[in-house]
């Protein structure tokens, strides 16, 4: 039997952005040259010492990195089974992992001489993280947000406005994140000379999935070192929630070549995978092409994109990063799902037992980690990406308790 050559994960994607059959560059012709220009700049500056030094300094002094890895001892004990460690991305400036990427892309925009920044946002976390770096660098900033999301995320809309960003309400389609992305693309195609589009997740056309991953991979690089120094070994398993998949790939990527480390991405099962109320393209979708790349999608039999549902706005997206699609197909990562109810239960558990209020997105990862830990030995370890904090979700959780805050 021929011996298969092991995959070198650091060599992915190929030069045109393919992860196996996924990824690629599916955009209208007007954007092909600008994307090529972006790819060249990104490849150049990722080798440029002064750029990397500026990025590192910002991540340390502005974002507050490295973020700690915390051994949730009481949670692990009460839950039983494996030891649960939390990578505390919730402690970053602006409250989530999103800023790792917006800092990187905004510095790139500055080096490329772009004066205007645009972004799409769902829950508003990426919009806030973009408006934050735009304020700091003195760049004009426009954030596209679906009208439905604007109504349910008032506080983040106000934060973006305070930071000096213009929030454009998107009234087309389902008026949520996917439509905001469409509208940002339309803006970019119209103002392509002076505008830099900061995509918030590992989706979109090449080079975005690779570039956003590389900016987020600091999560996994730090986590790897921190686990080695705290436990003397790599974790037995990694768990992260997956919407578009940027926090997950950021954690997973530096571990992909460590065959022994099991990897779990947790999608939003909403009301359940057997209903039509979920946002789990990897668990229950089919491959297709949307937003510039080929990946798993929530779509109907005619190839129309369907509406998704999750209690967490940040996971409410019908696509997923193409690298995840590929990792699923080759079996390197396992994709599972947690329902709204499971995520909420985990939200309350972590809050009560460890005094850490997680974002509802991250609560999906915690929910699955608790389940997984119980099937493992107490000498084993799980590293969970706590991708964001729950402050933004207070009104959602309170409303479920019948309170208005």
């Amino acid at each position, binding site marked *: 039997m021929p011996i298969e050559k092991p995959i070198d994960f650091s060599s992915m994607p190929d030069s*045109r952005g393919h992860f196996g059959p996924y990824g*690629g*560059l*599916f*955009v*209208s*012709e*007007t*954007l*092909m*040259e*600008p994307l090529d220009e972006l790819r060249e700049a990104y490849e150049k500056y990722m080798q440029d010492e002064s750029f990397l030094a500026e990025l590192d300094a910002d991540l340390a002094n502005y974002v507050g990195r490295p973020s700690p890895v915390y051994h949730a001892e009481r949670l692990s004990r009460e839950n039983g089974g494996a030891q649960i460690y939390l990578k505390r991305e919730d402690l970053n400036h602006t409250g989530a992992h999103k800023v790792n990427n917006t800092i990187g892309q905004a510095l790139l925009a500055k080096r490329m001489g772009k004066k205007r920044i645009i972004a799409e946002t769902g829950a508003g976390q990426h919009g806030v993280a973009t408006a934050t770096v735009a304020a700091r660098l003195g760049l004009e900033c426009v954030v596209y947000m679906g009208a439905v999301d604007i109504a349910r995320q008032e506080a983040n809309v106000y934060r973006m406005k305070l930071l000096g960003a213009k929030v454009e309400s998107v009234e*087309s*389609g389902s008026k949520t994140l*996917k*439509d905001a992305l*469409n509208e940002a*693309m*339309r803006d970019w*195609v*119209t103002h*392509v*000379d002076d505008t830099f589009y900061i995509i918030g997740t590992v989706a979109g056309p090449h080079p975005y999935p690779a570039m956003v991953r590389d900016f987020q991979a600091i999560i996994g690089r730090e986590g790897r070192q921190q686990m080695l120094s705290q436990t003397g070994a790599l974790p037995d398993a990694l768990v992260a929630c997956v919407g578009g998949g940027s926090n997950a790939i950021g954690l997973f990527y530096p571990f992909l070549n460590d065959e022994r480390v099991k990897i779990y991405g947790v999608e939003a099962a909403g009301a359940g995978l057997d209903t039509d109320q979920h946002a789990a393209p990897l668990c229950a979708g*089919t*491959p*297709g*092409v*949307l*937003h*510039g790349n*080929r990946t798993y*999608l929530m*779509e109907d*039999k*005619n*190839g*129309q*994109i*369907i509406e998704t549902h999750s209690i967490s706005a940040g996971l409410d997206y019908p696509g997923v990063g193409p690298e995840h699609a590929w990792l699923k197909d080759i079996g390197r990562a396992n994709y599972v799902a947690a329902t709204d109810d499971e995520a909420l239960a985990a939200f309350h558990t972590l809050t009560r037992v460890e005094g850490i209020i997680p974002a509802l997105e991250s609560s999906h990862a915690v929910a699955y980690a608790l389940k997984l830990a119980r099937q493992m030995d107490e000498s084993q370890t799980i590293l969970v990406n706590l991708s964001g904090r729950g402050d933004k979700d207070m009104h959602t959780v309170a409303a479920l308790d019948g309170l208005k805050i």
Partner: protein
Amino acid sequence: MSRIGERFKQLEQKGRVALIPFVTAGDPGPAVTVPLMHAMVEAGADIIELGVPFSDPMADGPVIQRASERALEHGVSLRDVLGMVSQFRQQDTSTPVVLMGYLNPVEIMGYESFAEAAQEAGVDGLLTVDLPPEEADELVAAIKPRAIDPIFLIAPTSSEERMQRICDAASGFVYYVSVKGITGAGHLAIGEVAAKMAQIRKHTQLPVGVGFGISSAEKAQAIAQVGDAVIVGSVLVKRIEELRETPEEIAPAIAQILSSMRQAIDLV
């Protein structure tokens, strides 16, 4: 030769610039489309571009987005659009029909089954706006042997190198996007278009059509002086939207707009 190639050859012999109207199939309802196609041919259309509705039309402005939404409310699918083409072909076997849309509906149908069904229906060209030539080999291999021309866009941002690659992959005609922006944009600069056309013609013998932002007979006339085909969409779709409550008025109203464009173009 494909029906598109033949049509351009005839036009060249007559010294006539092609007029290519775009409408979204199934807008505002499925029954409107086939009679509208015949009315457009009657009013001077040389080729028809039929938009395939998609839930996420990233390259389109609000006018064509709303047309897609109206068609999707009636559940109009790619298969339904092929049905309309085949119905159109019962009476008209000479006017080429180009489907214009996004890749995903074609992708989910499967390239081979799409190509087969499209040929059977009488489709002559396919323009998927989110499919650059770099990703198109497989689809081109499926449609071209069935006399369906792959139509590609050239944009104001395309480099000479890309123009060459696009022209090499295309057949039928190439489509120059005359503005940096989305369909229905308002800032068409004729001088710039003329300069680009000269550049494009260095790379291909194929006819070059021009579209995006051509909203009046005057603009159509100006474009006809530099292009081989004038492609108009949003101005028609906007009129369809205005008349959506009285669909029987749509075909005559669109015919009227096209007739005045036809006259203006033929003065060139």
